[in-house]
């Protein structure tokens, strides 16, 4: 199983633990990742705000690169996934596609409309299969109560994300939680916004969102939260102390990137999964799992 790998900016910037954790679990899953070093940022919806055509052209460029490799695209960020899916949805219109290809011609690229970008979350459920994943679980996260947190862009809008053709996408994260042996903590915030996009614009509101979701999950008994989105992780983990200060109560809810949680269940070490890079201490969770301290 081979994919053109689109890691996104954050897994190499603010969440550097995500990239190696992904590589390690993909190795075990037999997923081969071919890098596309020249692929640009998707625009994350911010660039699209300014100029949608520009954003779509940059994504079409990435799609064309993957087509040239004859490989499907694998992403590890809910935001990248959503932005790519939306761009791809618009590029189904032949006239628009031709216009966009006009901008790519100079670089010798042409997007034929065949790309099918897929988040690792979807790849696991749809391509790899949960059976195979289950076969690789050597240390089930038994007893861990885990709250899913999807990230806006991987749940809305449902037409561009093709939920109708892939109904599993609606519950994919819960399915992963169950496969790795943990218990799902269902809570209202799971498909809400983490607040990251307004962090530098209205920090109070952004922190209020972090506090609301993490506290709600905690109150329902969650020991940890799991997310397929590094932007959500940035806000929910790195800014959790600040959110706790604003809320006037401690939170201390470990936030795991989806590949980290899977890696732990595959028997990989917290160190290899980059848990030491988290701001919220994950050792209580590790102790509960009986993972020896290094």
């Amino acid at each position, binding site marked *: 199983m081979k994919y053109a790998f689109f890691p996104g900016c954050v897994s190499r*910037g603010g969440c550097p633990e995500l990239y190696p954790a992904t590589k390690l679990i993909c190795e075990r899953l037999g997923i081969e990742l071919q890098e596309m070093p020249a692929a*640009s940022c998707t625009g994350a919806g*911010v660039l699209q705000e300014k100029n949608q055509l520009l954003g779509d*052209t*940059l994504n079409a460029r990435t799609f064309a690169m993957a087509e040239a490799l004859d490989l499907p695209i694998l992403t590890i960020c809910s935001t990248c996934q959503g932005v790519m899916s939306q761009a791809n949805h618009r590029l189904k219109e032949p006239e628009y596609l031709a216009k966009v290809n006009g*901008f790519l011609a100079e670089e010798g690229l042409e997007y034929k409309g065949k790309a099918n970008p897929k988040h690792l979350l979807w790849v696991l459920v749809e391509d790899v299969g949960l059976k195979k994943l289950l076969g690789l679980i050597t240390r089930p996260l038994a007893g861990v109560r885990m709250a899913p947190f999807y990230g806006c862009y991987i749940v809305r*809008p449902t037409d561009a994300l093709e939920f109708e053709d892939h109904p599993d996408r609606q519950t994919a994260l819960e399915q992963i939680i169950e496969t790795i042996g943990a218990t799902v903590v269902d809570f209202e915030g799971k498909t809400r*916004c983490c*607040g990251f996009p307004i962090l530098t*614009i209205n920090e109070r509101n952004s922190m209020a969102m972090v506090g609301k979701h993490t506290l709600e999950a905690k109150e329902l008994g969650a020991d940890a939260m799991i997310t397929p989105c590094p932007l959500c992780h940035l806000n929910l983990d790195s800014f959790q102390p600040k959110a706790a200060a604003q809320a006037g109560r401690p939170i201390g809810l470990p936030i795991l990137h989806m590949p980290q949680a899977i890696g732990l269940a595959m028997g990989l070490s917290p160190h290899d999964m980059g848990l030491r890079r988290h701001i919220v201490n994950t050792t209580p969770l590790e102790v509960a799992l009986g993972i020896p301290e290094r």
Partner: protein
Amino acid sequence: MDVTLKIKRFDPEAADPESFWQDFTVAIEENGTVLDALIKVREDHDGTFSLRCSCRSSICGSCAMRINGHAGLACKTQASDAIKDGVITVEPAGNMTVIKDLVVNFDSFWDKINQIEPYLKPEGPEPEAEYIASNESMLHLSSVTSCIMCGSCVSDCTVMEVDPTFLGPAALAKAYRFTADPRDGDAEGVSKDRLEELTKPSGMWDCTRCMECVTACPKGVAPMDRIMALRDQAIEAGFTNTNGARHTEAFSDSVEHSGWLDELRLVPKSVGMTNVSALVGYAPIAIQALTHGKMPSIIHKKLPQSENVRKIFDKVEGPEERPRKHN
């Protein structure tokens, strides 16, 4: 067809007013709507059960509520589509106070609509004859004027949930209905005063782009897309001295010049290099990130062939730039 409804109820006149869940099973026609089922509950089971409805054909905007956790019109939702694990869960719309059962108080909704001054405000000299607006401009506006003021978008807005002062999706979409109208604003149709007002806190830049409102809206108004268009208009009109505008510019600059995002410089550039107090506020987090090995590299390397990304910026942002106002 029998359907079971799980309804969140509230009676302000109860001795100890607290909301509670109650289940009802009613028989409706195969193609009946959630509203049909709710009306049945009132008619056959409990005459005190309160809800708003009128047109029953998604025109009046009265019957917005949360169905299975998400806002929508009860009269536009087929009961058979809404059954989940055998039940349909119904709650009052969110972000507004509940008066009784499914009836919520719309005062805050209308206050915000009034706040954006929902009428044309031409600033230039009065036209000598009637103002001829192009067909295209009016067609463009029809997507926003189709709003039926149901409040579904407001119900599910993630920012309003934590900040009731936020103008919110319905009012901001309504504001766009005027800023995008060639008759509003100065002789060029640029609504400078409006845009300036809307760039203030609680306005257009406070939206998180979560798309809840786009999903909730039963009329395709896509409020978030209108908010993005407002931001574009505001930057175009010269209102660039906001964290939001700086953030968009800094983001765009980084991608243009290196092909990807330079997170390290995004924060200071967004809050403003000279905004010392805000920057100091981020310092403890930066130090923590540094000690945990989370800090993005100080040296932001360009991607290979990043010059090609730059060329695309030049080509697309050049003469091909998309129209901001259709007049």
